[in-house]
């Protein structure tokens, strides 16, 4: 059914007999045709929920053991000992926004390429020109976005702080300029 990809391993139970195979089909029939995948989701979900519950749980249990002497000095934010002036919600380097924009587009590209490149190996086994089609589609997709990256590079947008060459030129002109 999956050509090469479906490498079916004899999934024997660790203790060497196969009782639970039947057990699995009987109880979960009510929900989906073969809800083995749903069972795997359940496992993954229990991992995520357990990990999400842990910090508040630990912090809450700790509340009973932890000393709590709120003192004026302790509650102000740490600023190397001096009194913090102004709030921390202040503007900052706007290069971060460009990174966010370009990241978003390339992250979408990676996510879209996953299903297509997944088939590449199977397309080769199917033979004929399916492999050529999948290759052409996926790498046309990749190439077009690589043009985007080259455009960013050339216009110097992804340089974090004007690249070194610019700065050197800038410093030279500063020295030559009459004070």
């Amino acid at each position, binding site marked *: 059914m999956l050509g090469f990809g479906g490498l079916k391993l004899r999934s024997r139970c660790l203790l060497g007999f196969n009782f639970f195979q039947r057990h699995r089909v009987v109880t979960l029939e009510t*929900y*989906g045709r*073969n809800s*083995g995948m749903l069972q795997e*989701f359940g496992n993954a979900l229990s991992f995520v929920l357990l990990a999400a519950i842990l910090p508040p749980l630990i912090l809450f249990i700790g509340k009973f053991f932890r000393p709590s002497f709120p003192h004026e000095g302790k509650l102000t934010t740490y600023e190397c000992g001096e009194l913090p002036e102004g709030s921390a919600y202040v503007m900052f380097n706007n290069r971060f926004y460009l990174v966010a924009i370009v990241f978003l587009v390339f992250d*979408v590209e990676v996510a879209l390429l996953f299903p297509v490149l997944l088939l590449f190996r199977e397309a080769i086994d199917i033979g004929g020109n399916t492999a050529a089609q*999948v290759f052409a589609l996926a790498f046309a997709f990749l190439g077009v976005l690589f043009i985007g990256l080259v455009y960013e590079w050339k216009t110097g947008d992804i340089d974090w702080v*004007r690249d070194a060459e610019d700065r050197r030129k800038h410093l030279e002109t500063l020295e030559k300029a009459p004070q």
Partner: protein
Amino acid sequence: MAVSDLFVAFCFLLGGAAAFFTAFHPNILYAAISLIGSLVAVAGLYGALGADFLAAAQLIIYVGGILIVILFAVMMSEDIYKRRFFEGAKKYFLPALAAAITFAGLVKITLSADWSGATKPDFEPTSRAMGWALVGPYALVFQYVVVVLLSGLIGAVIIARPALKMKKIDEDLERLGED
């Protein structure tokens, strides 16, 4: 009461409450945080419906990409954060009324239809099938989306470029450039 019914009900509650706060919470940052709740709830529903690739794609693109961008934008415009204002019931009245009417009407229509023929979701792995769909009937759309991605990327960067000028060095260069 299969575990998945419990999970789906929990996702409905979490998603609904989070969407409510996104719409009505006076402080934009909390609205953004509650948007995370509704997005994760929708990703959970995709999992319960057997769309495993979509659940992961939603987490990667929405929660890992778009929300980072939204939080960057919210952090930039921090003046709104300090002004904790509720936009006034008057401002919310008309949109809430319009949304309530559409919601009630459409819910009545959905419930009036007969949903007897529904089937159980078959929990086959979907990423391979989506790959074949992207390569097969949706190949043109796949290439069209990459062109939209590229134009979006270049457009966003061109729009954002004036705002991303590094004030200090560029002014020096321009000032020195003239004389």
